[in-house]
């Protein structure tokens, strides 16, 4: 395998929005992830290189970058998947977010929209109430389970054309979370959440391109969740609860 190129030629985005690519030579190994490559550069060649990671095992969602033009989680992306014989690799911060420095994008707009979509739990009980029993068999719980494993990596947000075109659009991850909560029987925030996701920039701005679903490293399908929200808002509109 490694008898192709012995070295990788890695172009890394340096600086801020008006930065440039800087090329580094990195020894190629049989087992190597994109994050390994970035870490190698920072430890051996360029200590000032800024990037973000925590868990290294695909749980925390902090390591996403643009890898050869596509958003990916870098800690679980093997080099052999993204680099061919020529050994060329291009790394940039996630798209659709303001760059901070080098490979680090500002995630604040992403999480602000998460809040705006009412992607948070509204308790319907207190700690003195008995624990809610939720059957894993119900349609609602199964819908929530299908979308729940999001790691907030922002890959779908960077992959979404609607986010790029429409600055008000809440994006796939926030709406996907809103959908899981809309299906949570313990949650009491339904009406205000439907209002939030049907406002300007909400679920109706999604064109069902499924770019989010194509890129989500966990294999979630935000498009389907958003379609679910569209149905809920139409039902609520017909009942006269939304205008």
């Amino acid at each position, binding site marked *: 395998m490694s008898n192709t190129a012995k070295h990788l030629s890695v172009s890394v985005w340096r600086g801020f929005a008006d930065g440039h690519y800087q090329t580094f030579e990195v020894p190629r190994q049989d087992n190597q992830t994109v994050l390994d490559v970035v870490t190698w550069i920072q430890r051996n060649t360029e200590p000032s290189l800024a990037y973000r990671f925590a868990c290294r095992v695909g749980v925390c969602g902090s390591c996403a970058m643009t890898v050869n033009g596509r958003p990916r989680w870098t800690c679980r992306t093997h080099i052999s998947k993204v680099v061919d014989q020529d050994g060329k690799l291009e790394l940039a911060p996630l798209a659709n977010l303001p760059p901070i420095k080098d490979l680090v994008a500002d995630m604040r707009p992403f999480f602000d929209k998460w809040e705006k979509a009412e992607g948070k739990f509204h308790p319907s009980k207190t700690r003195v109430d008995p624990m809610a029993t939720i059957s894993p068999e119900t349609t609602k719980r199964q819908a929530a389970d299908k979308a729940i494993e999001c790691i907030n990596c922002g890959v779908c947000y960077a992959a979404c054309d*609607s986010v790029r*075109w429409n600055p008000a659009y809440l994006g796939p991850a926030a709406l996907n979370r809103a959908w899981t909560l809309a299906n949570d029987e313990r949650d009491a925030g339904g009406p205000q959440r439907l209002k939030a996701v*049907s406002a300007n920039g909400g679920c*109706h701005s999604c064109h069902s391109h499924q770019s989010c679903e194509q890129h989500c490293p966990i294999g979630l399908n935000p498009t389907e969740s958003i379609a679910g929200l569209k149905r809920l808002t*139409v039902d609520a*509109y017909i009942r006269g609860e939304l*205008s």
Partner: protein
Amino acid sequence: MRLYILQRGTAALMVPLIAIHLALIVYATGNGLTASEILARTRGSIAWGLFYQVFVIAAAVHGAIGLRSVARDWLRIGPRPQTGLMWGFGLLLLAFGTRAVIAVVFPGSLS
């Protein structure tokens, strides 16, 4: 939200209308009807007139709202110009469509 409902509602309405329209085209061409023979059947027909006028209204509403979304995403214009474009395009579609319906139901009236 209201625009979304109107856009998807008119899309749903157009599904059976388009099916009938296509079936009609297949029937008419399959039977070798000429334009004048077709016009002879539609002339004075309130039913066909209504059918196509509903179609025209649905298409105008649907297309205009759709174009507004395209303008929102692709042109850097604010909500007011978007709405202006929507009304302009919608009324244009409505005018052309209505003109065509009149021509089919009352031939000669527009010449």
